[in-house]
């Protein structure tokens, strides 16, 4: 009970500290916006979500109309805007009313003439994707056309003998081709697992993992602050055991980390439209174990430092190294094999990979290992610190 009183008091003190709020809650949101936007082009996945494609086709033909229909179809999240003239399309692009421009020449035929794709600044990846879609569509159309020609020629040869009903074959082919042409297709290949989240999603998870680590620093500092201000001595003069005090400090760090995470998750979801995945329960599950390990690390900082300044230095350095090696600054997908192995020693890396897995949809069984590792980190930290801190303050 007294541990809970100490924990609530610690959480209240944290929440009243404007600097801490700025650092722990506002900062990760700002960094998510900056890093998520800056690395949008590099990370790919999810960048098609708001694409507006401006199209100018002077004289429409069947092929041009088919490609425009395919691009604007359901499931691709592309809004097609038809321009009246080439100038209008270029004006739209200058005013950034469209993300990518598509110029289809007169009587466009993918065999003889190329479509011109013009990206606005920062939309190069989207433009590449659209180009790939057009090429795929064109190749498919050409393949059907060539196949049809070949089949018809062969059939015509056979029909001279009176063995084939040309009219029936022609009818059947026309029906099949129309069906294929009208079928909606998504010409984006399935991305690799680590790159399957958008940059905003990745950095929301990365910043959550990194800034929860800062709790370790704050928790360690809070212990030294109590020591400096003599409130720890006063606590020791009350009939409160050392174990209750240490448990209270641990729960305090745990509680504040939860508040921090829930605010961050809410802000990224509602303000930045970050999709944390189909299972909120899985997110909370892995967060529980991660926060447990972080609260344990807070006690490590308190136990192995002698004053606030030292806790500050050790904590800041530790967080930065862990953030760098654990993938919170640069995506883990860019890491070499060796670096990926090193990352596995960082608790934030386990949390981050779990979050990104949850975002793309994962099974509960896949989360047992990271949860176990994080629980282990927490237990070992608490064990070591309770011995060292207990001796120190008793």
């Amino acid at each position, binding site marked *: 009970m*007294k541990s809970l*009183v100490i924990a609530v*008091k610690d959480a*209240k*003190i944290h929440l009243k500290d404007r600097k801490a709020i700025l650092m722990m809650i506002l900062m990760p949101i700002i960094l998510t916006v900056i890093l998520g936007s800056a690395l949008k082009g590099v990370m790919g996945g999810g960048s098609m979500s708001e694409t507006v494609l401006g199209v100018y086709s002077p004289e429409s033909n069947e092929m041009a109309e088919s490609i425009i229909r395919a691009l604007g179809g359901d499931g691709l999240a592309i809004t097609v805007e038809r321009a009246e003239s080439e100038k209008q399309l270029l004006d739209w692009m200058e005013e950034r009313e469209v993300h990518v421009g598509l110029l289809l020449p007169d009587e466009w035929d993918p065999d003889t003439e190329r479509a011109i794709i013009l990206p606005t600044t920062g939309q190069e990846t989207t433009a590449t994707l659209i180009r790939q879609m057009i090429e795929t569509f064109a190749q498919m159309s050409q393949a059907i056309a060539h196949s049809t020609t070949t089949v018809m020629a062969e059939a015509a040869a056979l029909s001279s003998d009176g063995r084939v009903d040309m009219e029936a074959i022609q009818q059947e082919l026309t029906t099949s081709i129309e069906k294929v042409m009208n079928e909606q297709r998504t010409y984006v290949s399935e991305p690799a697992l680590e790159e399957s989240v958008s940059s905003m999603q990745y950095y929301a998870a990365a910043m959550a993992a990194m800034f929860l680590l800062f709790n370790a620093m704050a928790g360690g500092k809070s212990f030294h602050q109590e020591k400096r201000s*003599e*409130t720890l*001595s*006063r606590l020791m*003069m009350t009939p409160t055991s050392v174990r209750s005090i240490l448990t209270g400090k641990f729960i305090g760090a745990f509680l504040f980390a939860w508040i921090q995470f829930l605010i961050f998750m809410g802000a990224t979801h509602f303000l930045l439209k970050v999709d944390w995945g189909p299972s909120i329960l899985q997110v909370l599950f892995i967060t529980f174990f991660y926060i447990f390990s972080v609260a344990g690390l807070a006690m490590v900082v308190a136990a192995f430092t002698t004053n606030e300044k030292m806790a500050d230095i050790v904590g800041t350095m530790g967080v930065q190294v862990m953030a760098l090696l654990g993938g919170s600054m640069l995506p883990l997908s860019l890491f070499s094999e060796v670096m990926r192995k090193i990352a596995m020693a960082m608790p934030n890396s386990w949390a981050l990979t779990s979050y990104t897995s949850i975002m793309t949809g994962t099974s509960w069984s896949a989360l047992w290992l990271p949860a176990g590792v994080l629980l282990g980190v927490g237990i070992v930290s608490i064990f070591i610190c309770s011995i060292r801190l207990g001796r120190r303050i008793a």
Partner: protein
Amino acid sequence: MLTLTDVKKSFGAHEVIKGISFQVEKGESFGLLGPNGAGKSTLISMICGLIPNGAGEIRVNGKLVGKHLKETKQIIGVVPQDIALYPTMSAMDNLMFWGKMYGLSGKKAKARAKEVLNIVGLTERGKDRIETFSGGMKRRINIGAALMHEPQLLIMDEPTVGIDPQSRNHILETVKSLNEQGLTVIYTSHYMEEVEFLCKRIAILDEGKLIVSGTKKDLNNRLAGGIVLKLTVGTLHPSFIEQVKKLNGVEKVIVQTAEELDVHLQSKMEIVADVILLASQSGVVIHNMQLKEANLETLFLQLTGRSLRE
């Protein structure tokens, strides 16, 4: 209420408490007087169970502190020398927190915090953060935190350090009133006037030893006559000091500085004229002369040859 028997404490090879024994009765106000470094705070820490005593025994209400730590802590309320409060929390929240640390439930802690705010005269400021308070107000809440669980024994470790006279008076009046209501008080200070005002019995500590203890009357009786003639002169001549010492009725002569001399007298005797005569014969120019009643400061000076505030 409190019994100390031959209590000792060493930090490494340095012995800071050298066999102290005294008793404090229920409802008493007991003063611990001594200069900085005399061992007052260490002694208090041992009574409160914050640090273990090296030898001897400390009993609170008959219970050994080391053995029944939880019970003895519940009996004692401690006002530490430093302001041990959470600056970003309100006075009310601080008081409630400390009350809960002594086992008060949320409801009881709230009701008691209101009472305590009234006792320390800060009802109007209950919702304000401690960091917005003046030094004196912080000190008052610091005392209030120790009163939350209605202790039987209140131990105050220099509770008026660095505050304005108005706040000091308020604190002293509050403590006196609490003692009159039956609360046992142990008050430590190096301000002898505070101890004289509050305490019926006094113990004087120096370098970890109890050099004297007793009621104010007992201590006054130990004073050499109780009168001090304070002289401020141009330059002190050794021959003048020797001649003053030989005057009839002079108990002791203490040279304070090169220009200041305290002459302790056995009683109010008419020796001023003799001193003036000796000074003029020795060529010593007297700038100032004061006759003062002896007090605890004088006693400490007599016993140790040093000032309380050194």
